[in-house]
């Protein structure tokens, strides 16, 4: 899928942050923008980004495969990343992990059959005072994720998804 005009516009804005000729610095932003649009990064998208930034495709792949929040495979509509590092573990992330897996009936790195949720184990998100911390689609930070909070989030995300579908 080629990069849309809106995506190119956003990437241009990112490129403008760096000195002339240093557009490679915008590769992380470009990949983030593309992933937000498509949900994951296909080889085709990586090639498009490479071409747009005048980089060798392998250099773009190196970046996309290095940082943990880029996905090189299709994911669920909502990627839920739960921090399981020590501070979160001391404040209830084990309970949250079990509850998420039982409720969604999937394990880590798995996607629900309806394609709605993918569950990932994450590392420290730098918000340990509000543990357990969960990140939805890498952008929405959800704090103090007790089972009732998790229930509320899942309901909310499902509602958002059906609202978006009605608009489409």
């Amino acid at each position: 899928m080629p990069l849309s005009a809106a995506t190119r516009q956003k990437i241009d804005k990112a490129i403008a942050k760096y000195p002339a000729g240093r557009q490679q610095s915008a590769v992380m932003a470009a990949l983030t923008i593309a992933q937000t649009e498509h949900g994951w990064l296909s080889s085709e998208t990586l090639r498009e980004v490479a071409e747009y930034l005048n980089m060798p495709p392998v250099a773009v792949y190196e970046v996309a495969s290095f940082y943990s929040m880029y996905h090189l495979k299709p994911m669920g509509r909502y990627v839920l990343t739960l921090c399981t590092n020590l501070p979160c573990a001391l404040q209830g992330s084990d309970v949250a992990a079990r509850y998420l897996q039982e409720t969604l009936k999937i394990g880590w790195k798995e996607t629900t059959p309806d394609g709605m949720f993918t569950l990932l184990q994450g590392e420290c998100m730098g918000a340990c005072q509000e543990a357990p911390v969960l990140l939805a689609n890498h952008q929405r930070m959800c704090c103090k994720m007790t089972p009732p909070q998790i229930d509320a989030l899942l309901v909310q995300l499902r509602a958002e998804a059906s609202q978006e579908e009605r608009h489409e």
Partner: protein
Amino acid sequence: MRTFLDFGSDAVLLAGLTGDNWRLKDYVARGGYEALKKILNEHIAPEEVLAEIKLSALRGRGGAGFPTGMKWSFMPPNAPEKYVVCNADEGEPGTFKDRDILRFNPHAVIEGMIIAAYVMGCARGYNYIHGEIWEVYERCEEALDEARAAGFIGSHIMGSGFSFELFNHHGFGAYICGEETALLESLEGKKGQSRYKPPFPANVGLYGKPTTVNNVETLACVPLIVKNGGQWFQNLGQPNAGGTKIFSVSGDVERPGNYELRLGTPFATLLEMAGGVRGGRRLKAVIPGGSSSPVLPAAIMMETHLDYNSIAKAGSMLGSGAVIVMDETRCMVRCLQRLSEFYHEESCGQCTPCREGTGWLARIMHRIEHGEGRPGDIEMLDRIAHDIMGRTICAMGDAAALPVRSFIKHFHDEFEYHIKHRRCQVADHV
């Protein structure tokens, strides 16, 4: 919910912040941008500002504790292209102070960066923000727009001859990018893998140009120092380490959160501010400076004051000021296993001792935790950790090794018990 905005009565960096008053007008009402105005209106020379920073005895708040004034003075004065970079890639487990500074007081960091740029002669700066805090990145973008619109960023700031451009850069999930040279690689659009030092960034940094990388909290201190004087700041702390320090308290306490204290405050005071150990249980162990710093048993920690020298004397590090508290019910094997998995996951793979060593550590910890430990495993953990230390390009190798050596040193019995009896010595509920 406002409880986590009680930062303590010593607070100067976080004083008066409510969570809602982060905008430029609020910052100005608190006396913000006065330091910058003073410098530019009174034509204070960069060397004079630098002298105040040195007098303040400000030390880097990212973990290494290097004197900030000295770091700035390493920048070559006459280089045509220089950069100042803010390290907001806060990923050290247990550390969450920079997120609060950035979301509650972003302009303090912006003003600090402008002043840093003025002192070092940088025309451009970047704030590299931790990937997981997208909402904070968006707030920083808004704050930058405000500062630009008010004329604090751009060409000929406030009619002076000084021009400075500043941008936010959003990371995307790599612990290693908190290491300054890996951060610079990442900022150049590459994998975040550390560079050899020397050359140091002050000579060869971003795009090969002289660059200084400072932590968020460090930069947020700068306007206060300029406004109130280096001596004032130094008096808040100790002769070799001025100012307050934000401690991020997490784990088994009643009120996890950020607490800003004068350097040298007893640990017992901090624990009390955080509401004490959760559920009235007994303190067992504390990691005082982020997950990479050696763990200390309760008895040592309760006698320790929170400053660079005291914690070093106790056998650990002040580090980033992330205090992870563990109560009497915690299994130290399980706690270390978590950390070992983390370092294995986050090793960038560049240096063999770290790439392979963290895997070995994680696998041995996994088998001990799961009742499959073997005689000799503790010695092997120690040897692997020893063999990683000092043999990698960046400090992450040591960061992975230090917790291991301290856990097995202070809680040797618990590890032995786990191997022999194939279960926890304590009623673990991690």
